[in-house]
């Protein structure tokens, strides 16, 4: 299928929607909920009703947020609607009519107050470095560097995801990369607000982060979070001419191709879960697989649903804030499919996927480990 998609506005696209139901069959939340209103085509009709002035309640509009923004619907859409754009604008319409779920208002207030969705003090953003036994004296916060590692809220504050940040800085050190983190100078990239339909509130965050990156003189910004990378590519890149925005796996594949790292055997059966925002929405399929292929001893098994057809972990699109139980059901289903490959380890390349799939495996397939790819690489480097 062609990658070409279109977006002429909410009303036009809601009319162009053929109601064919291609989107229905791949939607991870529709499969769980089952009602037509929770199918992408049903959500499009809800928006059409909303725009036509039908009185709809916040409860009814919750369907719009029972969506992980995984992009699978856009990938199969028979009329080639850019559904990611559609969902973002539809959510903005919902916000403007004060029909968005309460949990998102809390996230917005947290970001406004602290600079992160969790509501933690932002000066604790690099707290994970302080707990590293071997952290350098500068705590990886340097005035100038070639590369900025934009850590993201999840890897800064979530205990499980902090291990990803730790592993990545160790790997960067092992690869002798000149890099810095922004510490408390970093604030939320703004994606959770954009996904909530609160684009305007994201602007101050964008301006703040841009300024901090410019100050370092870096030519590359690298992300372990695919959603941060997407956000930077879509909303920041035009303000940063000549600066490369890479996912960690892209940088690592590049570094390892230029100079192999001294990797030890990892004798485990590993499958790879394509994060939606890195793969289907972000176009990065090969770099993670190249990194995995370089790890000796590792037995790699592909899941049938991969690359463009990769399954969603349930953790995207702010779903966790709106309907955590639904996010969990999606995670369990996906974890089960991944585990059915016979893998001992589910590798992925996204802190949110790691968090949700780790909970999914606990419930559905206990004993199967979930690791970010940089954690596996750190293990292979024995660091």
């Amino acid at each position, binding site marked *: *299928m*062609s990658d*070409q998609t*279109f977006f002429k506005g909410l009303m*036009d696209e809601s*009319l*162009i929607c*053929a*109601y*064919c*139901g*291609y989107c*229905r*069959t791949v939607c991870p939340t529709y499969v769980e909920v*089952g*009602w*037509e*209103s929770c199918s992408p085509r*049903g959500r499009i*009709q*809800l928006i059409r*009703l909303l725009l036509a002035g039908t009185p*709809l309640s916040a409860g*009814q509009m919750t369907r719009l947020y029972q969506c992980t923004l995984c992009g699978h619907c856009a990938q*199969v859409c*028979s*009329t*080639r609607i850019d559904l990611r754009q559609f969902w973002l604008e539809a959510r903005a319409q919902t916000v403007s009519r004060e029909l968005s779920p309460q949990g998102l208002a809390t996230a917005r207030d947290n970001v406004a107050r602290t600079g992160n969705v969790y509501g933690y003090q932002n000066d604790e953003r690099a707290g994970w470095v302080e707990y590293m036994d071997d952290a350098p004296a500068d705590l990886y916060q340097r005035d100038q560097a070639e590369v900025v590692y934009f850590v993201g809220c999840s890897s800064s504050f979530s205990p499980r995801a902090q291990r990803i940040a730790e592993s990545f800085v160790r790997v960067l050190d092992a690869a002798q990369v000149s890099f810095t983190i922004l510490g408390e100078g970093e604030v939320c990239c703004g994606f959770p607000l954009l996904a909530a339909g609160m684009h305007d509130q994201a602007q101050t965050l964008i301006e703040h982060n841009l300024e901090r990156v410019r100050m370092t003189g870096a030519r590359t910004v690298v992300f372990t979070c695919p959603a941060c990378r997407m956000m930077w590519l879509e909303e920041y890149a035009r303000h940063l001419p000549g600066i490369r925005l890479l996912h960690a796996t892209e940088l690592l594949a590049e570094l390892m191709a230029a100079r192999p790292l001294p990797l030890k055997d990892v004798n485990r059966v590993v499958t790879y879960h394509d994060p939606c925002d890195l793969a289907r929405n972000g176009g990065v399929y090969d770099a993670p697989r190249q990194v995995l292929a370089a790890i000796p001893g590792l037995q790699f098994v592909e899941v*049938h649903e991969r690359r463009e057809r990769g399954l969603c972990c349930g953790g995207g699109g702010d779903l966790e804030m709106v309907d955590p139980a639904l996010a969990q059901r999606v995670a369990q289903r996906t974890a089960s499919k991944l585990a059915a490959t016979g893998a001992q380890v589910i590798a992925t390349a996204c802190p949110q996927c790691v968090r949700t799939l780790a909970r999914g495996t606990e419930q559905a397939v206990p004993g199967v480990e979930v690791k970010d790819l940089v954690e596996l690489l750190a293990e292979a480097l024995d660091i």
Partner: protein
Amino acid sequence: MPATFPDIPVNRITDDPIERKLYSRDLAPVPAILVKPFFRTLPDAVIRPGNAEQVAEVVRQAARQRVPVTPRAAASTSYYNTVPVRGGWVLDVNDLRGGIELDAARQTVRTLPATTWFELDDALQQKGFAVKSYPSSAVSATIGGWVSMQGHGLGSLKYGGVGEQLVSLQVALPDGELRTVTRESDPPLDWFVAAEGTLGVITGVELTVRPRPAAESHHLFAFDDLNALGQSVAWLSRAEPRPFTIFFADSGYLRLLARGGFHIPLDLPPSHFPISEKGLLLASFQGETSEVNRGKDVLTRLPGQELPSDLALEEWNLRLYHLRTKRAGPSLLAAELWLPLDKLGHYLQAVKALAGRSHLLIGTYGLAVAPDMALVMSLYPTDERHTVKYLAAIGFTKWLHDLSARCGGRPYGVGLWNSAYLPRLFSPAQLDELKKRKARLDPTGIMNPGKLYRASFPLWPVTFSLGAAVLGAGHVMLGRERP
């Protein structure tokens, strides 16, 4: 709560007004003025059974209470086949999905009815097998849904319609009994093919499959003459080895794609009128390598100009995406037809003449689905936001059906809207036979009432013909393309 069932959890039943509204439409939106005065399309409740027993329970209750039941899965048709017209309960069977069990030795597979054709083929391909045929809406169309409809599409040219591939069906009959039907049973499974859910609800399907083809090859030809295109499709459909499928399209179809913003494989003149004679033919062979190679030899006798192989592969990869044409709309209406292949060129020329005369954009594409029969779709853009214009465009569909009837064609599928064409679809004896089956299996008339067997007002032949003629004339005036 509108209904309760001992074995169905309450969270599988809804009477929420917005939810019910979403179940009162299918692919083709129809203005309220044509619907509300005559039909009750809003169901009283929607029920989502989780298994065959729950389906049977709902049907049993419905028969007892005389409540209409409309089975629905993907709802990817456009004649209200899955939309209630007398209220009642919509039975959303989408949770009866998966359950794929391959019998490799017998080359058969069992599946639940709401599995899509894409899913079934994908599962079979992993085990070295493939479905024999599938609809051009395979991503969403379900196995049970296609059995309930006419069941012809890609692969039908080589392997026949889905009815020919069936081994058995499990059906929830209107009395609530779950019965497995075969060709020898009473009633036989043939009764349920194309019955549009009016005799029961399909809850399980067993059908024959084929080994995954060892080779496939796709070839795209450009034609400068629609008669030659039609004759070539007809000739190739009877050739040996038989192609897996033959797709064809005229320049109007390509114009719709171009207007929608898509790349097209042919250069067309900048002006729409006079209409180009150009057309495309995509021939696809699948099977053993030797068979596919012999197919390539056959194609050397085609009169068209063969286009580069990457364009052929691109057309093949887009075989489930003809609805891209809807971007030329925003609305798109269509006449979907059975057409004798020996009249295909004649029909394409007649559509071209009608479009040229009236300065309308009409695109036609189709598939050869039997050695003597094509499944044809003639599409035209419109805009449902302009009610008068849209009503006129709806009426114009009959003009295309009339045109096809003059070429020996007839509508594909019945549902509600095509019941106006019943005399073209069935002989009196055939219709009597269908009504006898209905009376025997569904004496209370609860299963998908208002479909298939008789036309309701305003779809009576006289009122419909008159109304459609007037409205269609309106489209000729209002739908005119600007020079």
